[in-house]
């Protein structure tokens, strides 16, 4: 690692901790710690949703895939953009309002319980358990990816990278909770965006312009320029179906719940979509121009194409900050998932079952120590980077999307959805994803989120129709939410 890179990394990490310290002073109660007191400005909500969503995949995985295969990798980008847009358009504002109407719910399990007035608490238990299980492994595999990257690229010891990274993330999350996570995500989002704009522009200019790049790539192998190269219809559907996952990701939905006012959603949506679309273009063009740039000396690991560009094209002092964007991408996802785990432990298990009358001060303290506990568990799991248990993470995106996605959408748009319908839907969605993933051949090669999503929705509707009309109090809350969506004003409960 050059001294320039080292100094840039150090400045970045210290900056993140400073944000944590500032937010520590602004956090007074559990709603502040878990949801920032529902006061996120649209720009912060937008970029923190984007940065939490996009992990190291945006700077490493996607450019690497395009570098290795060419333009046929754009389908996943198209699917993600459409999914994210629909989520912002149809879910964000309603979820923001409904979570406030439903007894001011501050987590997704909390919302599900209050939305259906579920006295059995089964929805809370199932959803909190699913969140804790998958996000712990998600955090862990994020740490492994970061550690391996630093080991391979900068010759840093894997263990050192793992523990230093974790220490900084825990530091600011422990101190400042949701506000710190959102504001660090905001800064991290800007850093990622700048890197993904600057690097491809310089790379394409260096190669003599866009037309020159496409010509060179076409001469190397014309199949790189085809969107249909090696693609089947089902392959394209599977890649685009990643976009379905958005409706059920708790760490992204939390940003919707935290936005300052429902009327801020259109602005946040525009900022988020602009960030995401230009970021994805940046990542695609990095990989694509890499095919031409590294033609004489192909990269051994395609996922390092962004890193190689930065090191070749920029002065060490600039490259340090551009490489810090990779750290930013990885950390901004881990911190949000860590905090969602902490909220599931504190709000959905500790407060709901153990200490109903706990003071706000006690709850914030429990949340903080939950952050440390889960972080330690995730780090210990990540110490064996080849551990098979980490394979569980490959179920996470589809699992959340298929189990929670249809239920979140139905709960916002269908008056007739019942508690049992929601519970059965979640289970059917989750089980379908796990079972489908084990099977292969023909239609079974379809990405498991598609059957999971469809079967979850069908099961939820069928069980709800069989069960009949939900309780009057549930219907009253639903109607109050619908009126608030139209008027923009939430009526006080009776």
């Amino acid at each position, binding site marked *: 690692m050059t001294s320039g890179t080292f100094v840039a990394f150090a400045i970045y990490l210290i900056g993140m901790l400073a944000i944590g310290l500032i937010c520590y002073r602004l956090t007074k109660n559990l709603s502040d710690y878990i949801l920032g007191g529902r006061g996120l400005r649209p720009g912060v909500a937008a970029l923190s949703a984007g940065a939490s969503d996009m992990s190291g995949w945006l700077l490493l995985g996607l450019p690497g895939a395009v570098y290795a295969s060419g333009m046929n990798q754009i389908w996943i980008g198209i699917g993600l953009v459409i999914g994210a847009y629909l989520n912002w358009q149809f879910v964000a504002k309603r979820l923001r309002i409904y979570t406030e109407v439903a007894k001011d719910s501050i987590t997704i399990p909390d919302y599900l319980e209050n939305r259906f007035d579920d006295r059995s608490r089964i929805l809370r238990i199932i959803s909190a358990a699913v969140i804790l299980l998958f996000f712990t492994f998600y955090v862990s595999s994020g740490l492994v990816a970061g550690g391996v990257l630093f080991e391979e690229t900068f010759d840093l010891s894997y263990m050192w990278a793992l523990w230093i990274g974790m220490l900084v993330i825990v530091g600011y999350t422990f101190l400042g909770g949701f506000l710190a996570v959102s504001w660090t995500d905001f800064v991290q989002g800007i850093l990622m965006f700048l890197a993904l704009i600057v690097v491809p522009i310089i790379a394409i200019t260096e190669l003599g312009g866009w037309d020159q790049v*496409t010509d060179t790539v076409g001469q190397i192998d014309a199949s790189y320029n*085809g969107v249909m190269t090696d693609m089947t219809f089902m392959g394209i559907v599977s890649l685009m179906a990643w976009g379905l996952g958005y409706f059920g990701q708790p760490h992204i939905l939390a940003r919707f719940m935290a936005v300052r006012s429902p009327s801020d959603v259109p602005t946040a949506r525009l900022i988020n979509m602009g960030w995401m679309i230009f970021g*994805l273009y940046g990542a695609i063009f990095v990989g694509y121009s890499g095919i031409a740039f590294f033609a004489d000396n192909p990269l051994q690991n395609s996922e390092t194409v962004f890193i190689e560009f930065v090191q070749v094209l920029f002065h060490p002092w600039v490259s340090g900050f551009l490489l810090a964007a990779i750290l930013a991408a990885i950390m901004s996802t881990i911190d949000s998932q860590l905090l969602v785990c902490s909220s599931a432990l504190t709000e959905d298990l500790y407060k709901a079952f153990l200490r109903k009358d706990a003071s706000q001060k006690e709850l914030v303290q429990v949340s903080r120590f939950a952050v440390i506990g889960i972080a330690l568990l995730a780090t210990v799991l990540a110490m064996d980077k080849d551990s098979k248990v980490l394979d569980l993470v490959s179920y996470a995106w589809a699992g959340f999307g298929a189990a929670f996605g249809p239920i979140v959408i139905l709960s916002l748009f269908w008056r007739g959805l019942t508690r049992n319908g929601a519970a059965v839907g979640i289970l059917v969605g989750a089980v379908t994803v796990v079972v489908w993933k084990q099977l292969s051949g023909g239609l079974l090669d379809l990405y498991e989120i598609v059957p999971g999503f469809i079967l979850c929705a069908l099961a939820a509707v069928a069980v709800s129709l069989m069960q009949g009309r939900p309780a009057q109090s549930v219907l009253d809350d639903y109607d109050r939410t619908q009126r608030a969506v139209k008027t923009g004003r939430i009526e006080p409960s009776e």
Partner: protein
Amino acid sequence: MQGALSTATWFWLFVPMLSVLALSIATWLLKK
């Protein structure tokens, strides 16, 4: 701008994602 890209590639690369961006701008302007 199209360079050596086929029309199909050029279309799928730019039209869907930029249409979503245009839609975001339009819905934002309508709500202003």
